[in-house]
């Protein structure tokens, strides 16, 4: 069985299975979008494979991280609110 780990998405705790990408965790938390576009539109992922940069979020205080290519780690702090 895959092991469960705990992360936070915008401060709220979320249990995910290990091996889940940060992007999948964000979308599983109930959020539809990940980032705001330059004109302020909510955007979600387009390619989910590291090309489009629509899934950028702040992970462990590192901004502009492509979340589709990053796996969740225990205690990871994920923020999509800037």
């Amino acid at each position: 069985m895959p092991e469960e780990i705990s992360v936070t998405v915008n401060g709220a705790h979320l249990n995910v299975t290990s091996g889940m990408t940060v992007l999948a965790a964000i979308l599983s938390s109930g959020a539809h979008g990940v980032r705001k576009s330059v004109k302020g539109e909510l955007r979600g992922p387009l390619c989910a494979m590291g090309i489009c940069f629509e899934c950028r979020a702040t992970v462990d205080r590192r901004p502009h991280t492509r979340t589709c290519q990053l796996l969740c780690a225990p205690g990871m702090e994920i923020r999509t609110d800037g």
Partner: protein
Amino acid sequence: MDNVFAFDVLVVGAGPAGIAAAFGAAESGARVGVIDDNPRPGGQIWRGETQQRADHPEAKSWLEKFARCPIEFFSSTEVVDQIDRGHLLAQSHDGPREFVCKKLILCTGARELFLPFPGWTLPNVMGAGALQALAKSGLSVSGKKVVIAGSGPLLLAVAAYLREHGADVRLIAEQAPWHRLARFGISLLLQKNKFVQALAIRRQLADIPYKASCWPVRAAGNGKLESVTLRCGDRTWQEPCDYLACGFHLLPNTELAALLGCEIRGGFVRVNHLQQSSVSGIFCAGELTGIGGVDASILEGSIAGYAATGQDARAAQLSRQKARSENFTAALRRAFALRPELRASVSPDTIVCRCEDVPLARLRSCASWRAAKLQTRCGMGPCQGRICGPAVEFLLGWKTSSVRPPVFPVPIETLARAPVSQFSRPSEENLIPHEEPR
């Protein structure tokens, strides 16, 4: 210097082509390194497969070979520039890394082609491969209403996968017309394996409507997708859905090859029968040289791995099997060519460049891709035109290829690693001389 790694052969990309290349090269006793930007090997097609648990026996077997063979694997690492010939700059989560190699094998794969239409920027409108990748990465699609649209055999594979994971797949909309699909089906008959696979998938999806000459013209919803308007012939109708998984077949990731000076012809890297590119010491294999699917990628990867390590007889022997995969590549290209009507759904206020929010109307006022970049910032955002460039080529007929280092955005610490001259040299030096229109 720290974090400098030297190899006889360096493989960029750990999908089927890269895995086969690494395995072939390692058989010679050469010191082989493999880099991939993802956390795990397998590329897009074998994403989520592991040696322990794999849905595809072929994936399992190759991933086992990859784990067993004496290579060094660098995950979550992407090449961003060439410091010197055979000397690459890469970045990883742990900071910059340098790779020095005698031979380089590029297996950078393909991405989906995305075409704009009103509403395509709404959350939950994404690529077909993208939704599959997300489902493989842990997102639950169970009970979700999904419309799959665009073009290419990937749509069927995605439908089968999502349905197996509990999604309610409402419809598959293929823009290509039946007569071209039928001809493609006949060409598959000549390749027994592929035909059997196709039949199996079709049988699995027998109760899902598969519409040819059908494509999305609008996505709508409040803050997220709620419905998609589809067009089929003269008929348009709305289909409520949670996800629209939409991709218009595949495009090769040629940026790194172009940066290194490899000749690109008709959108793909030109290689000889032994996968040698126009630059001595650089081999290319897989989708980068033509969209041919997993079998062609494994074959070309093996050839490249052998050829890069002087195992020429083995490479030449395998090379004789290439004709068949080349036929398949050509059949794919013919069958899933884009219909011109797809341009008609885009309205003046449809955003084309998602990084910089540039609508079609602003691009129309520009004379060229270069002018559009300067005046609207189209293609100047973090994706560096990887998404909007091909869309603009299709919509406006502009030639958009222009590659300059770094080929991915990098933190300043990575830039500091490269000699300053690397980032201030005239970009013309890095441009491929010319590219024929597709």
